[in-house]
């Protein structure tokens, strides 16, 4: 197995773990954690393709990963702010208990 295939398999496994968590956990914060894991798995793919690609000196994959890290940080801040506001409103972060669109 080539090194790139190993990294891609690890990223696929991490993505699936994050997806499973985002789909099955009840706590809204843990759903956000699952989404963060999926974003990180995508970053690992970008860096691995940059490292083993034909033109690593053009820095394309590395730049994509760095911008992706910045966007993920913004997403985490807004997402956790939303969770805190929902908790203040509904007194719970249990997603199964939040089954109403209004009030």
């Amino acid at each position, binding site marked *: 197995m080539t090194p790139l295939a190993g990294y891609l398999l690890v990223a696929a496994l991490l993505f699936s773990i994050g997806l499973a968590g985002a789909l099955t956990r009840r706590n809204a914060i843990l759903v956000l954690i699952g989404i963060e894991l999926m974003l990180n798995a995508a970053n690992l793919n970008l860096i691995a393709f940059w490292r083993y690609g034909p033109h690593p000196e053009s820095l394309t994959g590395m730049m994509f990963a760095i911008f992706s*890290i910045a966007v993920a940080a913004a*997403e985490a801040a807004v997402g956790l702010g939303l969770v805190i506001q929902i908790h203040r409103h509904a007194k719970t972060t249990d997603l199964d208990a939040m089954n109403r669109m209004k009030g």
Partner: protein
Amino acid sequence: MSIVFYLLAALTVAGGLAAMLLRNTVHCALALTVAFAGLALLFLNLDAQFAGFAQILVYIGAVAILVVFAILLTRGSETPKDGVFSRSWLAGLAIAAAVFAVLGWAVLQSVRVLPHETAVPVVTVQQIGVALVGRYVLPLEIVAVLLTAALIGAVIVAMHEKEEHK
């Protein structure tokens, strides 16, 4: 494939699994930090020093702390009595397994054409800085605007509505 890669991959996957499986939410956040650290070390193992240290700074330094703050502010550390997994957990697990099967199949199918070991790219921070303010200056500006908007937006969303308490 070196032994270092296998160790780091095992650390990262174990951290991710623990973050998604543990019952106590604070323990999940700590396991998430382990997964982030493993990913940063994988980046360093891929000779992407800048991305690796950015990962440590942004994820371990900021995102993990934010997650812990959110857990403590929402009293999420109390384990619910009726389980931590949603009622439709079997469907979610099946979807995730199907996604992994497709991704793994695609990778294993393309192993023949994937490149083998290549020369280590030499990337200095100066090159990254020149690229950031040269070829990638527009994305850089857009990310700056996005981070400002996210900062203001997060504060506004999480701010107390004073009118409710009058």
